[in-house]
């Protein structure tokens, strides 16, 4: 077991830089240039994996070299040949940093490498934003997040501002604005870097507009309004928490292959000054205007785009009447009343829904256990450190009071133990901060599960619209029939009834049009659902695998470092070795 260090360092020196890069990319920093073959971090992983598998302990069974058949062109030949070289049996240097094979942030590396926001923030314990940014970037790490375009969004410098419009009335309500800086190379955005100031209300607007435009898509959920929290927490804490959440949200939006190209997002990120999107209150106030047009809108009269409007989900305010109808419909669906003409027969969909629900449960569970694991690692590190300190005190004490040489010898032994314990403690803590980042993927997917539910809900509501229209048509046709039957009994026709029949037939025609639009919309949403879920499955698979790799590589690296530390002490105390031990 102790031989493993030998192997590791023999190829460490050449690939130390690779290791640093591996670490940097490990966090899915979108700024690194990716190559044609896909996500670079993947290929570095592969190179690292093969080197790892070669570097096994000489005592273990012969390693299985895993180089993928399509051998990675990026595979740096120099580092590969390094471990083909005969293993030297030189004595292991005692420097813990050097002998670990995979070098996830070694302390020395972190301190001396150029500004690496992640590692520096780990050490300084500051700027939580960047830590989160790494984890949310993990979502864009999957190989399907293609080629070389990138968009990086940063949310910063929260500032107090005053609502000038109402300042004369209520003395002005204050709110916080955040600076949102975007760096991108997407051509659709005019520049490569721009900055705007937004308030939280703007974000809500953005989210609402996106929800309307992208029905059926898994839209990342926006941060909560959390009224209660804002009153309970300290202002600063709350603002910081919100800043972090906003950043995460915007980054996720930018990571979504379809939404990143949306006008709504572009406008939000680029247009300075007031956000030029209709706010939800605007929509509500339109109700007052629209209330007059309601029946016509619903029944297809007047207004060119009315059929399409009908196909949009019913919202409070202007769609009151429609809401009532759809509610009636859904109730009758539930009670097994008149069978809706279009039934959700898509077994596959129902199964998928079920599976998604199970998945969500398991992600919640795994996420909780991950938290608990992180806490245990944390505690271990802390206690190890405290113990180390206690022994350091003992060492000092014995040295000060020493009368006998045996005391000095003991003090020396204690010092070695204490030093190792403190080092190990530090490693545990580093390990942990890395672990948190990796396992955060689980937390992130919880948010995405909500997005999936949203997408499924869009589908259900679109279906409901179709069903409502169908039963509307059916009841209209029923009325027309009755009127015709009654009218035909009157000789010469019944002028008023005939007129009514005509009107109804008009209405039916309009409703039929609306129905067609609604069905098209429903189908469209189904398509969106399907492609989104596909995409999600793929990305999730890749993200989870990356998470596992990151987690495992981390564990290996730090376990090796910790092993080195204690091996050293075992050597320093080898004179006390007994056969029985």
């Amino acid at each position, binding site marked *: *077991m*102790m031989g*493993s260090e030998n192997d590791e360092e023999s190829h460490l020196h050449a690939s130390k830089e690779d290791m640093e890069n591996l670490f940097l990319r490990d966090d899915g920093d979108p700024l690194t240039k990716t190559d044609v073959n896909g996500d670079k971090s993947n290929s570095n*992983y*592969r190179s690292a*994996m093969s080197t790892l*598998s070669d570097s*096994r*302990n000489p005592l273990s069974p012969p390693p299985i070299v*895993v180089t*993928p058949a399509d051998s990675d062109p990026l595979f740096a030949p120099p580092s590969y040949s390094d471990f083909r070289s005969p293993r030297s049996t030189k004595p292991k240097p005692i420097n813990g940093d050097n002998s670990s094979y995979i070098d996830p942030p070694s302390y020395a590396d972190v301190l001396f490498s150029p500004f690496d926001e992640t590692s520096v923030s780990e050490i300084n314990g500051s700027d939580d934003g960047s830590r989160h940014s790494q984890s949310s970037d993990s979502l864009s790490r999957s190989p399907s997040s293609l080629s070389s375009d990138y968009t990086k969004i940063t949310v910063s410098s929260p500032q107090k501002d005053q609502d000038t419009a109402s300042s004369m009335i209520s003395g002005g309500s204050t709110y916080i604005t955040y600076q949102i800086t975007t760096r991108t190379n997407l051509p659709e955005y005019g520049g490569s870097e721009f900055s705007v100031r937004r308030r939280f209300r703007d974000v809500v607007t953005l989210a609402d507009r996106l929800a309307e435009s992208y029905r059926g898509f898994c839209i990342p959920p926006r941060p909560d309004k959390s009224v209660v929290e804002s009153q309970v927490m300290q202002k600063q804490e709350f603002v910081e928490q919100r800043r972090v959440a906003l950043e995460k949200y915007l980054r996720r939006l930018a990571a979504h292959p379809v939404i990143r190209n949306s006008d709504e997002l572009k406008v939000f990120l680029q247009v300075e000054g007031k956000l030029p999107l209709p706010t939800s209150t605007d929509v509500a106030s339109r109700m007052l205007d629209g209330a007059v047009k309601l029946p016509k809108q619903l029944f297809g009269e007047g207004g060119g785009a009315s059929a399409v409007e009908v196909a949009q989900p019913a919202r409070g305010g202007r769609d009151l009447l429609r809401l009532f109808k759809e509610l009636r419909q859904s109730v009758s669906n539930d009670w097994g009343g008149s069978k809706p003409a279009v039934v959700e027969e898509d077994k596959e969909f129902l199964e998928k829904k079920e599976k998604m629900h199970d*998945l969500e449960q*398991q992600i919640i*569970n*795994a996420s909780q*256990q991950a938290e*608990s*694991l992180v806490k*245990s*690692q944390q*505690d*271990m590190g802390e*206690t190890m450190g405290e*113990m180390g300190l*206690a022994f350091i005190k*003992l060492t000092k*004490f014995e040295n000060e*009071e020493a*009368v*006998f040489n*045996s*005391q000095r010898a*003991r003090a020396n032994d204690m010092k070695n*133990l204490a030093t*190792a314990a403190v080092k*190990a403690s530090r490693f545990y803590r580093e390990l942990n901060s890395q672990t948190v980042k990796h396992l955060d993927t689980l937390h992130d997917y919880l948010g995405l599960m909500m997005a999936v539910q949203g997408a499924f809900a869009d589908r259900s509501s679109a279906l409901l619209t179709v069903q409502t229209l169908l039963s509307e048509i059916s009841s209209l046709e029923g009325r027309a029939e009755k009127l015709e039957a009654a009218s035909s009994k009157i000789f010469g026709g019944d002028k008023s009834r005939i007129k009514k029949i005509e009107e109804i037939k008009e209405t039916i025609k309009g409703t039929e049009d609306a129905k067609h639009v609604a069905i098209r919309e429903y189908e469209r949403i189904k398509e969106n659902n399907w492609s989104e879920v596909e995409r999600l*499955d793929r990305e*999730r*698979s*890749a993200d*989870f*695998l990356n998470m*596992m790799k990151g*987690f*495992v*590589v981390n*564990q290996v690296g730090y376990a090796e470092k*910790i*092993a080195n530390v*204690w*091996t050293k*002490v*075992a050597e320093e*105390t080898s*004179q*006390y*070795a*007994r*056969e*029985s031990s």
Partner: protein
Amino acid sequence: MESTEQPRSVSGSMQSPRSPPSQPYLSVSVTDPVKLGNGVQSYISYRVVTKTNFPEYQGPEKIVIRRYSDFVWLRDRLSEKFKGIFIPPLPEKSAVEKFRFSAEFIEMRRAALDIFVNRIALHPELQQSEDLRTFLQADEETMERFRFQETGIFMKKPADLMQMFRDVQSKVSDAVLGKEKPVEETTPEYEKLKHYIFELENHLAEAQKHAYRLVKRHRELGQSLLDFGKAVKLLGACEGEPTGKAFSDLGTKSELLSIKLQKEAQQVLMNFEEPLKDYVRYVQSIKATIAERGTAFRQHCELAETTKLKEINLDKLMLTRSDKVGEAEIEYRETKAESEEATRRFEMIVRRMNEEIVRFQEEKTEEMGVAFHQFAKGQARLANGIADAWRALLPKLESASSV
């Protein structure tokens, strides 16, 4: 120190002595804990095997059955008779009923008792003790009789000890209360020693406390890994390939490591935390000896005073040709004898303590060195095991990603 260096190392039970038969040896092992008795009255008995060529002992080997209170008896007797010597400490009598009979507790106690007896057997003075011989050889009924005889007297012991501790530490309060300041040795070396011992106990207790917590942390981490492994496996069951299999492998590894951690927790407890606890007990035993020395010193001083007074009195009486001279003379001689005895006792304690301190420091360096070494080895083994286990997953994860 080489591993063949004999008398000072007392880790675990003694192997059969490798020294040639002509050399005197006394080796003891405490083994085979067995639960006897019913319900509240149940207790653990141990097999005590003695191998020796000491002439005072009956034969080369003897096996007896002893229980914890027999060990307590032995310790009390030795404390009485060998003042000045640091009597090896006993493991505590555990108060927690349920815990009393857990397998780990029993094993730890057995190991501690084994060390206890061996330390006595290896001590040049203590090993000559008649009480030791009784302990190692007497049949069970005799032992029981002895044990019951002595408990009456020694019940007071803890209270006496407390009194002595208070004496040693409350000079100031005595002065405040107007009591006569108790007489104390004030040589600088002895002062230094006392200060050292008292401070040492504090430092050691803290280190031991953290060591104990560290054991708990190992257990907690083991539990977390187990729970995490299970959760991850369940998650894998929801996923298709290759993610599902990857999660399943991850979960299995996690569960495996959980076991390693529990094992290491036990090792740390037995080989690291327990020696630290033992060290603390030892220091407490030394404090008891310090108290004894204090008492002996006071007696020596008081009797010296008294003798002086009696001498003065005698001289006075002789000058006045009193007929009480005879009586006084006898008193004076008796007192003088007592005083000389007290002085001898005190000086013996001082002499013993001086030797004991050297022994103690050397033994402790050795024992701590062993403990540190085993701890370091255990941690290295654990960490390497963890690294190896996780590393084994990497090729699989890699091939899963490239699918």
